[in-house]
């Protein structure tokens, strides 16, 4: 177990060191995402910044930003390592390989959190978005991120086997912006789209976060209404499916000898 945790912390440390090399790229992403939010909220507000709409939009957009960084980051990261030849070297560890991936994703989440905090700070100060923060939002955010991790594991598994999936990852992260209720609440969607949206990884999380942060609901009331239960179910399903699919993909990649291919 000591080896597993050493591998985990080692992986997190490495990813952060490498990310630091790309700090200007990351900063430009923060700027880009901030500018897009300002533009999107201006358009959705039909030429003005509506404070109530801004809060709704802000929560969805920030959760989507997490999704964007982890989805693109993990698939690019695995592909880049396969291309560089270091992916196979990372498998030369006595620790279980899932700890390496977990380390990779936790580092990605840490980097994403720093970027989200920076973007949020700028947006909150710039647009004076009314938002009453609550500790109850934290477990909901963590649950949402757990589901997102599961979803990223599925894409990570696909990357191990097929490698060239950045296009698909890009398409998915953009689709998530429009069909998960990031921009508009799912309740405004047509029935079939709302049903589809609820099967996606961040939709339920965004909804529960809005209930807590905007409507002032408690965790117990969101549990009673079923929305929190939906989020728990969604996250557990994605996390379990992601884990299984990743292990299976790893097995396939080793069987096909494509672990280091690109």
């Amino acid at each position, binding site marked *: 177990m000591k080896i597993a945790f050493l591998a985990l912390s080692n992986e997190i440390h*490495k990813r952060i*060191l490498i990310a630091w090399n790309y700090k200007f790229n990351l900063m430009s992403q923060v700027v880009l995402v901030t500018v897009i939010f300002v533009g999107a909220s201006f358009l959705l507000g039909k030429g003005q910044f509506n404070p109530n709409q801004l809060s709704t939009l802000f929560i969805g957009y920030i959760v989507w930003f997490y999704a964007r960084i982890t989805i693109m980051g993990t698939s690019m990261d695995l592909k880049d390592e396969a291309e*560089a*030849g270091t992916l196979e070297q990372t498998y030369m560890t006595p*620790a279980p390989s899932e700890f390496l991936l977990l380390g990779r994703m936790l580092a990605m989440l840490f980097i994403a959190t720093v970027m989200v905090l920076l973007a949020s700070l700028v947006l909150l100060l710039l647009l004076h978005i009314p938002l009453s923060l609550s500790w109850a939002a934290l477990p909901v955010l963590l649950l949402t991120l757990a589901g997102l991790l599961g979803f990223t594991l599925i894409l990570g598994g696909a990357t191990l086997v097929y490698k060239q999936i950045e296009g698909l990852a890009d398409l998915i992260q953009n689709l998530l912006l429009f069909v998960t209720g990031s921009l508009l609440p799912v309740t405004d969607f047509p029935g079939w789209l709302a049903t589809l949206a609820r099967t996606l990884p961040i939709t339920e999380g965004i909804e529960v976060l809005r209930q807590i942060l905007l409507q002032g609901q408690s965790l117990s009331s969101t549990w009673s209404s079923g929305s929190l239960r939906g989020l728990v179910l969604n996250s557990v399903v994605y996390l379990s499916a992601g884990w299984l699919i990743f292990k299976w993909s790893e097995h396939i990649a080793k069987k096909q000898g494509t672990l280091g291919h690109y």
Partner: protein
Amino acid sequence: MIPFSRFPTAAIEVTSLSKTYRTRQRSIVRAVDNLSLSVPAGQIFGLLGANGAGKTTTIKMICGLITPTSGRVLVNGYDVAHERSAAIRQIGVVLEGTRNVYWRLTAWENLLYFGRLKGVSGQPLKARAEQLLRELQLWEQRNDTLRTYSRGMQQKVAIACALVTDPPLILLDEPTLGLDVQAACVMKEWVIKLAQEQGKTVVLTTHQLDIAQELCDRIAIMHKGQLVADQPLSELLHLFSQERYQIRVKGNLADLRAACFGNLTVRSEHGEVILTGAIADQATLYHYLTRLQDLSLPLLSVRRVEPDLEEIFMELLTRSEKGEQREDRVLSSVQ
């Protein structure tokens, strides 16, 4: 740092190892076909073969990076399939290609990362990393990122990363590929030092047969996934020596007047004509000498010669191809 092996005499035991792939056209490719070999501890073992012979697949199966279709690999007595964790600790590997290490990290960061990856940490790891970087004369540049290093320096760091946990077995897949002469020399010195001074087992694959001949105690040659030779270098070099001759006469190539000398290779050097190659029996040798006498070319010397590894390699591959063709003919006549 690394636990003692279970069987100290055999570093690697490969038994009936096979790897087959299904292509997109649904045909089956046998990358490695029923391979069995044993690598004694403390030797430099060369695994040679043309492109696509199955060398890299074999190395990766030894490391557990490719799952074999059948067969078993033991590394210092640990089964790679069932005791992966213990087996991996025995191995340091530099895989084929230019980037086994992180170019965005410094040499120091790379060494610490790969050490921790293998479960070593703290002061012992830092001391070992320092020792390796000093020995490789990279200590002064330890805080520079590897993208600023030359290819030779990067390869040194890759080897240092493979050695950072002091494993008893080192696998080097094409370690001198793309290196300049000076960097290749440093690499060769290191390989010899690892085996002779530190008692490590080194398995290396290479296309550069002169390097294999210079370094290896034992050579295995693979062809189309199969083992066509596995012998100590000295025995391998003697394999065809009885059949090979070198005849030197005074003159130049024009003096031969298109005379035929079977399979002998003919070259001209400093006013001499040198004929080299396999001569099956004494009668043929005398026949060639008589022909040279008829051409009035003064005989300078006749001697048996040791073939070099390259000639043996080519000969074995030719024999292997012929064997396959014979088998094909037998099979087609049976069918």
